């Protein structure tokens, strides 16, 4: 049994929540609130860097473990159990990175400032908790904790039909988590299991496919899958996403696309792949089909969008479909396994987080200044705001998978894995990337280039505070694109034991 208490993850997870509380109680002015949130964001980034770079690739599977008994009785018991492995450490880093970006992106908010930063920080705690929990009940607790902050961010600081979108987001997510709860309970009640400890479940995953399960293992697999598929989102459960994205404020969109969707992908990798080996292999074809449909459907619908945010939202559906393609490719042939696709899926979580984060930041700036996201109204922005345009361009090129930028690495890995397992469906999925090149370049052309419009003459480029997160993310995107090894190696360190467990 894994035990210990180093405290690093506890601090990392709860520092934002503590910051939120301090904001509400101590910050007397909006300026103080902003600075406090910024300080917490910087501290979080530093902590997440320590978590990521302090992770020993050759060491224990789970590191930085914090474990305390939570409650124990005759009938129920759970532990407070945090820890990271190669799969979650990069996602912690991603959350630290985008958390700071989200704080900077909401620098100019004037409505209920203290509350805004408090919800934003609480959201960060919830997401970090999901990525680091190694107890199923604690995992579920953090999974649900994320709901209310995101609801509030969309419903109060959003635009358009914000309340409708926020409620839709809430109902979809809570429905998914209801299925997950039933599955968690059923796993716990299985006599041979009797624990919420994920490390034990991961270690003895195969044992779950025995006949003594309370519900059939395939039912459990799909219950978990539903919860994560709604979050990812997978076609046809994606309909909440375009609404939520379109109406969320910039910081909300960044967090939503950057890290919240990744909770779904992380759940699929950690629980569906990690625990239900047989079922993952058995239903790989279904995952593949859903993945390919998501990729293609997302891409086709994206082309038709005229709202910048909606466009990026649908492109997310398309790109997250690749995660499923990567997962489905775990089994190459009879008994032959590969972790190429899985690493691609995990990498896709990280790279898509940074790329979409950057896209939403850029769109947010465009909207702040030009007051429209309607593509036909935009044009020639590159002349007026070169910095924003460059960021937009880099994010777009990374999104369509240009070599040298981060998106290429993950997509390549996914397709390499996919071609070994399902050549034809993967070929179809590649079509999605060609479509992506189409919609991204076309969107760039219509927004950034072309004749400068008179009514945009007054526009100014990004200020220092606005440019900071852009630069931060560009550095990450280029760095991962040029030298992905540190990241891929950590992911592979996390995924290797999972693939080994299949054998």
């Amino acid at each position, binding site marked *: 049994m894994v035990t210990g208490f180093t405290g690093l993850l506890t601090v990392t997870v709860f520092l934002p929540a503590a910051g939120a509380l301090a904001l509400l109680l101590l910050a007397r002015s909006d300026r103080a609130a902003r600075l406090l949130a910024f300080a917490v964001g910087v501290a979080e980034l530093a902590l997440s860097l320590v978590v990521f770079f302090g992770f020993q690739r050759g060491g224990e599977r789970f590191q930085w473990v914090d474990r305390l008994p*939570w*409650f*124990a*009785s*005759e*009938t*129920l018991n759970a532990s407070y159990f945090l820890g990271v492995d190669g799969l979650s450490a990069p996602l912690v880093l991603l959350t630290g990175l985008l958390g700071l970006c989200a704080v900077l992106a909401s620098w100019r908010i004037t409505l209920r400032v203290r509350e805004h930063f408090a919800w934003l920080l609480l959201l960060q705690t919830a997401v970090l908790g999901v990525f680091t929990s190694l107890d199923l*009940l604690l995992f*579920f*607790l953090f999974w*649900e*904790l994320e*709901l*209310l902050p995101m*609801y*509030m961010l969309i*419903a*109060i600081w959003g635009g358009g039909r914000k*309340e409708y979108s926020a*409620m839709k987001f*809430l*109902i979809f997510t*809570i*429905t998914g988590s*209801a*299925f997950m*709860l*039933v599955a968690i*309970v*059923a796993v*716990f*009640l299985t006599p041979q299991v009797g624990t919420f400890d994920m490390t034990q479940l991961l270690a003895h995953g195969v044992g779950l496919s025995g006949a003594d399960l*309370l*519900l059939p293992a395939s039912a459990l697999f799909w219950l978990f899958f539903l919860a994560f598929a709604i979050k990812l989102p997978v076609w046809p459960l994606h309909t909440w996403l375009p609404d939520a994205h379109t109406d969320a404020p910039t910081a909300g969109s960044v967090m939503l696309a950057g890290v919240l969707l990744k909770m779904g992908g992380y759940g699929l990798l950690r629980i569906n792949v990690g625990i239900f080996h047989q079922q993952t292999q058995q239903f790989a074809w279904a995952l593949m089909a859903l993945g390919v449909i998501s990729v293609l459907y997302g891409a086709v619908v994206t082309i038709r969008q005229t709202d910048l945010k909606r466009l990026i939202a649908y492109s997310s559906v398309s790109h997250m479909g690749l995660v499923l393609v990567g997962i489905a490719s775990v089994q190459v042939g009879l008994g032959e396994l590969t972790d190429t696709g899985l690493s691609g899926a995990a990498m896709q979580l990280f790279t898509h987080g940074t790329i979409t984060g950057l896209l939403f930041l850029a769109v947010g700036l465009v909207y702040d200044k030009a007051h429209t996201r309607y593509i036909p109204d935009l044009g020639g922005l590159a002349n007026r705001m070169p910095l924003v345009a460059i960021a937009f361009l880099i994010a777009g090129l990374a999104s369509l998978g240009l070599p040298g930028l981060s998106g290429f690495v993950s997509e390549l890995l996914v397709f390499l894995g996919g071609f070994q397992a399902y050549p034809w469906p993967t070929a179809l999925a590649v079509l999605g990337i060609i479509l992506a090149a189409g919609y991204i370049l076309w969107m760039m052309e219509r927004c950034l280039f072309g004749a400068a419009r008179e009514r945009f003459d007054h526009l100014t480029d990004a200020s220092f505070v606005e440019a900071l997160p852009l630069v931060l993310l560009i550095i990450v995107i280029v760095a991962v694109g040029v030298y992905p090894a540190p990241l891929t190696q950590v992911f592979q360190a996390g995924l290797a034991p999972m693939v080994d467990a299949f054998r």
Partner: protein
Amino acid sequence: MTLHDLYLLSPYVATAGMGILVVLLDLVTPRKSLLAAVAVLGVLVAGALTLVQLLDMGGILGGPGLPNLVSDGGVLAGSLSVDRFALFFNFLILAALGLVVLASTDYLRRMPGHQGEYLGLLLFSATGMMMLSAATELITIYIALELTTLPLAALAAFLLTGRSTEAGMKYLIIGAISSAVMLYGMALVFGFTGSTSLEGIAASFRVPAQQDVPFGSYAMLAGVALMLAGFGFKIAAAPFQMWVPDVYEGAPVPVVAFLSVASKAAGFAVLLRVFYTGFLDYDVDWGALLAILAAASMTVGNLAALGQSNIRRLLGYSTIAHAGYILVGVAAVAGVAYSPGAGPAFTTFGPSSVLFYLAAYLAANLTAFIAIIAISNRIESDRISDYAGLVRRSPFLAITLALALVALIGVPPTSIFIAKLYVFTAAVKSGLAWLALAGVINSVISAYYYIRIVRVMFLDAPPSAERIPVPVPSRVALAVVAIATVAIGVAPGLLLTAAEGAVKALAGVAR
């Protein structure tokens, strides 16, 4: 009756005695604020006596070897049993009473001249509830039930407004009908088992010849069903829920708060005791019957709550839904799925989940109601739309009320999350996975109407910038229950152990 009996009865005597004292004091003292203090003192004394009894049994964490203070026969010729189970409910009911008294100090000014009666009736009703949870004999159950119901009917009508009188009348009449029905059920059960004590009833089921009386099985079934109808009224479960919305809307808010948590707890206490002590060997699957009631109750409550615009009516329907969730735990006559053919092997799972849920619900629902008491004192309206922008007018009230509503959905890390987890786990373990799934789906539906209130409070513009003051006693009570709501969710260990220990006092669970 010996001195030891008196010691065992002391919490009830203290509560009722303080009730009488409050009424008498009201006649002689001009300082009405003294009355509430005396009532709180009564709660503290009764609580202290209960604590002494609990320590006598070895404390909360004491081993299962000492479930009972009386070796055999019980108190007053076996009509009451002072065991861990009863003590658990003593604490629950006294806590609810104390908090409601604290929260109603400001509200009391609306009813000048009757403060003594108000507090006295509350104390009498609480005495009835406490006795109800200890009663082990049908006639005592009936008497305790009447002692619970009659003061509450008077209290419901206390405002003397049209709506309040209607609420009192409805509660009285429907209460009277349901107790008549229940009495008929008790008579049938007595007729075919020859005993009014739960032990005796249980024993008669173990004699096969007893069940061969012509038409006996049908009469027993009718008896059990009619008794269940009576209990259904107390716990506000469908289809005996008709009185709930009107009473919740019309009665004074503190009374509703008390009714919603304490009366429900007492109802479930007697339900558990009767079914898990008396009817365990009855060869009809009453677990399935309760499961159907549970599913009906949560569905009816949740669907009706969706369209409500009055917060008290909404919480009325919500309480019906929660009665359904709690019934899931009662229906979870555990172990059936694991020992086919060997007869049900009873575990602590189902009953202890009920106890845990009741405590968790007490914290969350009282948080909601104490906030509503403070709000309605100022804005004099129960319309949800009038709660617009509450976060601007009183952040404390808005945040605590939002916490309570989120807790009522069952979102972690609040008390009801663990409670629902516990109840649904018990259901799955007893082979009632469909019921757990129904409960989970219902929880999702309920999110919609609870969050709607949060939305109005946090998102809409306030009609006026006027602050809403919260008197100090209410502030204290609200802080206590709000902290409890989170604390039970974050650290449920102690309460889990206490609930598991308490249900072992039930004859059926211990074996």
